């Protein structure tokens, strides 16, 4: 059989620097590197390389680099190399192409087309190192009216809210798709940061129940690991309707990743594939959603907010409006550039809309309908920096979900091979030796560092705008200006163009 697929990358070893310590050999789970005792030589099999940089990062002599191969096809702007290779792959396998993480395609990133304001002369900017700068956020439904009691205290309707010390949460990544150590990192970091991580649809490992106060438990179409204790373990419950990277389809965790612990946590047999259906089979309509929302509230004594997570799709505003009236407390919108452990490539790269537009549309729509205060809005799906967070909040989000940046903080190099299950960084794998590569002490610290750094930057930007409390930034679209956007895009985003 002819192998049509040539390696994408080449591992380049600088022999002058290499000391033959063989750490590359020991650390590559894909067996790219090998050592030949007889020849005292190191050998590289480029075809196995996924470009995850494990060897490069650990090489003490900096003797390794990975380059994109310059082996090429006859150039075509239409039939590009990627397209040709995909066709070869499908001709080989007859299967659906699978990919991981967010789409690499060059769709517009609206975060990068919005600019943030700052104060000059007419009002002062505020120095966050000298003045308090508040980013505490409450997520959930707000009461409108209050009553005074005779003793001067006030009485309102009480709705369960999540209290966040930073408006950044770690979004859903299931145990199974990522390792237990990765979950532990997220849980510990969430606790230290005063925010939340999300179990994803794989249930909650018994060792992580102790982090319940900082945990959002997810209920997805497969209902893996869902039971009363699980629902009660977290601080909020998220119903996952869809995911930005793969709207409209379910999930598939191969049996090879269902080891003993995953099996017990998911409540499925060891080695069996975990297949999440495309829809929830008890939700075929918005009124069904309402029933599920209330079932979950019923199961948890109305003490925990219910989040409904949807993928950003064309009519997201109308859908969100429906959800805001369903009794849900928080809507999470996942943009199409968001990550995934595994998704059909064509869906990941072609379905959904950017989260920026979805957020603007939803926020505007809910305000028009007077129901914006019924729900908190959380957005995710490629929030990449503190500036993205500031822009999201200014567009109207209460908080953001981050996942890819969290994984990057844990060591992920975006090699987009999660579906192989042999993550060299110990994140997207269940192989014990690989899982061990992620020491939660280090991982949690790196996550805390990342979010703390973002929080500092958010405060700096707020201070520059003369805002010292994040609620004054929320929905404050006057603080944004578009750059290089069409009038239509500006209208949807509800912002003016730079210079206006």
């Amino acid at each position, binding site marked *: 059989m002819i192998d049509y697929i040539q390696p994408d990358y080449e591992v380049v070893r600088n022999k002058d620097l290499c000391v033959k310590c063989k750490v590359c050999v020991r650390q590559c789970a894909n067996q790219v590197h090998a050592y030949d005792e007889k020849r005292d030589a190191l050998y590289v099999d480029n075809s196995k390389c996924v470009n995850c940089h494990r060897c490069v990062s650990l090489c003490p002599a900096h003797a390794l680099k990975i380059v994109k191969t310059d082996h090429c096809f006859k150039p075509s702007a239409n039939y590009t190399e990627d397209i040709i290779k995909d066709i070869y792959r499908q001709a080989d396998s007859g299967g659906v192409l699978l990919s991981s993480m967010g789409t690499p395609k060059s769709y517009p990133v609206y975060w990068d087309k919005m600019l943030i304001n700052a104060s000059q002369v007419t009002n002062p900017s505020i120095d966050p190192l000298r003045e308090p700068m508040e980013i505490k956020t409450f997520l959930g439904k707000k009461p409108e009216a209050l009553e005074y009691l005779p003793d001067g205290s006030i009485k309102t309707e009480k709705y369960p809210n999540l209290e966040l010390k930073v408006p950044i949460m770690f979004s859903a990544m299931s145990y199974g798709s990522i390792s237990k150590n990765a979950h532990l990192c997220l849980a510990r970091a969430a606790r230290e940061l005063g925010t939340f991580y999300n179990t994803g649809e794989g249930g909650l490992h018994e060792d992580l129940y102790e982090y319940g106060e900082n945990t959002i438990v997810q209920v997805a179409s497969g209902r893996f690991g869902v039971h009363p204790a699980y629902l009660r373990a977290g601080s909020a419950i998220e119903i996952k309707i869809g995911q930005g990277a793969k709207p409209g389809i379910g999930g598939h965790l191969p049996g090879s990743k269902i080891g003993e612990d995953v099996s017990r946590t998911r409540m499925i047999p060891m080695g069996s594939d975990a297949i999440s259906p495309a829809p929830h089979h008890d939700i075929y309509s918005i009124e069904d959603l309402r029933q599920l929302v209330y079932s979950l509230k019923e199961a948890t004594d109305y003490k925990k907010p219910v989040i409904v997570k949807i993928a950003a799709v064309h009519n997201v505003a109308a859908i969100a409006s429906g959800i805001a009236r369903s009794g849900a407390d928080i809507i999470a919108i996942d943009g199409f550039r968001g990550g995934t452990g595994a998704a059909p490539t064509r869906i990941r790269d072609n379905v959904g809309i950017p989260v920026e537009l979805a957020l603007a549309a939803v926020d505007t729509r809910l305000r028009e309908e007077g129901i914006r205060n019924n729900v908190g809005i959380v957005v995710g799906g490629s929030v990449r920096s503190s500036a993205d967070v500031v822009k999201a909040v200014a567009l109207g989000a209460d908080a953001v979900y981050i996942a890819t940046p969290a994984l990057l903080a844990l060591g992920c190099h975006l090699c987009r091979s999660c579906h192989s299950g042999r993550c060299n960084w110990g994140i997207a794998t269940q192989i014990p030796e690989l899982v061990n590569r992620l020491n939660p002490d280090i991982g949690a610290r790196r996550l805390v560092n990342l979010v703390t750094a973002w929080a500092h930057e958010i405060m700096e930007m707020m201070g520059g705008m003369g805002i010292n409390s994040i609620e004054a930034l929320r929905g*404050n679209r006057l603080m944004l200006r578009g750059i290089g956007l069409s009038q239509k895009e500006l209208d949807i985003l509800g912002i003016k163009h730079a210079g206006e």
Partner: protein
Amino acid sequence: MEDYEQFRQVAEKNREGNVRIPSGCAICGYFSRKGNALPASDAVNAMSYMHDRSNGLGGGFAGYGIYPDFPDHYAFHVFYDNDRAREETETFLKARFDISNMERIPTRKVYGIKGAPLIWRYFGTLLPEVKAHTELDEEEYVCRSVIHINTGIKGAYVFSSGKNMGVFKGVGYPEDVGEYYCLDGYKGYCWTAHGRYPTNTPGWWGGAHPFNILGYTVVHNGEISSYDANRRFMEIYGYKCTLLTDTEVITYIIDYLHRKRKLTLSDVAKVIAPPFWSRIEKMEEQEREKLTTLRNMYAPLLITGPFSIILGYPGGMMALNDRLKLRSMVAAEKDDVVYVSSEECAIRSICPDPDRTWSPAGGEPVIVELDKECVK
């Protein structure tokens, strides 16, 4: 005359409502707890001491208890660009209100005041049949009527709509505006005043301060950074921020919280300029609980950025600074009269020998109300 037309055109393009205009200002107010009629001329004089805080592009005054002859009538003060707008407005008003009195507001020619619109006032009560048929309560109905005129009738702008109170404002230095409106003839238990320093507009009469809705008037010095967050929240509740000014949205916030949601003014202050979380966390449980609830439920109404405001309302006056106190504001007291001003010199021009003066802390309101026995 050509110059004047050009001025009108530029003013029209850049006027409040078309662009958002930052401005620095001078504010002043005084209030007699016993309800004594205090002369407006004090306010006019006081503002002249803060001449440099204005730039001749806006000044105005609000007086309470000034129309003892029509204490229960809505007093609508209206700017018209032309008679067509006036006729349309009058038709609209007459369909809803029993108008007891309508007249041009008396003015005199003053050097430095130009481009004045037609300025009328109407005293009226809501027609009983209108009142009977609307789902809204009376005040809300009046409020929406005002909003309707201001947004729906081109060239008409209601700039004062409360009972037994009135706003007098225009483009010019405040002392000239006072002279123009013949304020030497008015007396009231409370006066607030404003001199304006807009940074990028020739000024528009309607954009001058005080800003009013029903009985609330607000004079404001500052530039709030939370503007759009506040505005977009208010718009959920049917308020239309047509002027795009801070004063407008602050007035709406107070109207919403105080009139509609029945919050006490001191709690309104806690929503607008709340203590920092770090302070709240150290408070006793009941207070902590209350502030946490208020900050959470009305989070979008928190105002950031520098401001000092004086709110006038029937029977009371409240002065408030932003929580970092980024704008100057001084208060003083002599007998039953309380004074508030951007600068102490203005107070001392009226009252050279106050019993005490103080600088209110950021976020801590100064609230004065008529003594109970003085409320008619």
